[in-house]
C-alpha cells in the first residue's frame, strides 16, 4: 500500500509514468464507485433521487461523483494512456538517439588522430 501511495505521489504529471498513473487512479476510483452501486444515484440527472428526497445533498454528491468519474474513465483515461504511449515512444526514440546515435558512440581511434591536412595547433 505504501509503495502504491509512493508511486502515486511521486509520479510527476508530465511524464509517461505520471500520465499512466493518473489513468489508473481514475479507473480504480471509478470501479470502486461502480461496485459500490453508485450508478443508481445518476438519477439526479433527471431530477430524481434514489432516496426519494430530491434535496438529499448526500445523494446528489454521490451521483455527481459517479458521473464525473464515469466520464473521466470513458473519455479521459484512454486519452491519458494514449498520451503516455505517444510521449514514451517519442522519448524512447530520442533516448536511443542519445545512447546509440553517432554522438553517443565512443570515437574511433582513427577519428581522434589529427588529419594530415588539418593545421597543427
Amino acid at each position: 500500500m505504501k509503495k502504491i501511495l509512493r508511486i502515486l505521489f511521486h509520479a510527476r504529471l508530465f511524464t509517461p509514468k505520471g500520465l499512466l498513473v493518473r489513468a489508473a487512479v481514475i479507473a480504480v476510483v471509478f470501479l470502486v464507485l461502480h461496485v459500490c452501486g453508485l450508478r443508481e444515484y445518476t438519477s439526479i440527472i433527471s431530477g430524481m433521487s434514489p432516496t426519494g428526497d430530491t434535496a438529499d445533498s448526500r445523494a446528489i454528491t454521490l451521483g455527481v461523483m459517479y458521473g464525473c468519474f464515469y466520464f473521466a474513465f470513458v473519455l479521459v483515461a484512454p486519452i491519458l494512456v494514449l498520451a503516455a504511449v505517444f510521449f514514451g515512444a517519442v522519448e524512447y526514440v530520442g533516448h536511443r538517439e542519445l545512447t546509440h546515435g553517432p554522438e553517443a558512440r565512443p570515437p574511433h581511434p582513427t577519428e581522434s588522430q589529427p588529419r594530415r591536412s588539418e593545421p597543427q595547433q
Partner: protein
Amino acid sequence: MTQPERSCLLDVLEARKLSLWRRVLLACAGVAVGAAIWLPVVHLFFTPGVDDYLSADAVSPKAKELSTYHLRLWTNPELRKEEIGKMRSRNREWDFMGRTFFALALANMALREPSLKAQYLDPIDRIIEETIRLEADNGIYFFLLDYAKDREFVHKPARSIFVDGEIALMLGARRLVEEKPEYKAMLPERVETMLDCMRNGPVLCAESYPDECWMFCNTVALAAIKISDVLDGTDHSEFFREWVANAKQRLVDPETGMLASSFSLKGRFIDGPEGSTIWMAAHCLSIIDERFARDQYERGKKELAVELAGFGWAREWPRSCVGPEDVDSGPVIPVMEASSGSSGLALMGSSAFGDRDYFGKLCTSLNFAGFPVERDGALKYCASNQVGDAVMLYAMVLGPLWQKVKQLDSDR
C-alpha cells in the same frame, strides 16, 4: 531485465533526461494525439445494433427488457408506490404521462404479439382504471403542477386538455387492441368534452393550464379524437382540416416554421417551438395530416437535431428562440445544448418517421450517458425516470397502433 535496460525504461517512463518545458510540451502533444485518436472512435463502444431496439413486426429485445421493469412496477404495489412517490414529489405531470406512454407502449406490444395480448391488456386496464379513479376522486388538479391553482380556467367548467386528451388516448388505444364494453361510452364522452373546449377557443385549442394551451396536449387530443372516429364511426375530418389550416396560419413560429409549444387561449405565444413538444406533436399529427406532420418533423430535425462523432442528441430550442430551462426541457448540458427531455422524445420522433440513422445515434448517446442497468432480464436507465423510460419504450414499439388507425380509416 538487465540493469541498463531497466535504467533505460525508467529514464523513458519518468522522462528523467528532459527539461520541464519539454516534458510539458510532449505531454500536451500526447494528450492532443490521444484525443484525436480516441474521441472519434469512442462512440463505437456504445453504438447499438438498431435491430436490438427496433423491430418491424415483433417486440425488440431491448423493448422487452425495458417493459419487464415497468411491468414489475405495475404488478408490485410496493415498488410502484415507491417509484410513483419519487416522481410525484418532483413533478405530478410525470406520474400521469408515465401512465400514458406505458399504456400506449403496451397497446403497441399487444398488436405486435397477439398471443400475449391478455398479458399486456391487464396492466393497461389497471392503469386506465386507477387514473380515472384518481381523477374522479381528486379532480383535474391531481395531475397538474401547483401553479394551475393560481388562476381560473377561462373556459367553464374547468377542464384540462392535458388530462382529458391523455386519458382519451389511453382509452382509444386500449379499444383499438380489443373492444371493452365498459370503455365504449367513456371515449366519445371525453371526445365531446375536448371538442367543446377546443371549438370554443379562438385558435381551436383548449387549455391545459389556465389560459395556457399546450401544443403537445392539443395534438394528443386530436389523435384521440381520430381514434374515436375510426372506432365509433364519427367523422371529424372537417374539424381536423380547419385545425391544421388554423395552426399553419396562427400557431407556427415565423422564423422556423415549427409549431409553438404554448400559447394563450387567444393564440398569443407563451413559449416558442420546443423539442419537448415538437416530436410528440409531429407523431400525433401523422394520423391527422401526414404531410404537415412530416414537415414538422423535418423542421424539428433541422433546427434541433445534433449529430457529432457518432453521437446524436436534440436541443430543446432552435437557435433563434432560446428559452429557460424547465421541467419539460430537463437539464440542458451547456455548450452541447443537449436536452434530456427533447432527446428522449426525439427517439420517439425518429422512430415514428422511420429515421433509423438518427434513432441509432440517439441510442448511442443513450448507452453512453443514460447509465443503463440490466438486472434479472429487466433494463432501466438510471439517468432517466419512469416517464423517461416509458417514452423510450414507446419509441421502440410504436407503429402498429397508428397503422391500425390508418387502416381502419381507409376501410371506411
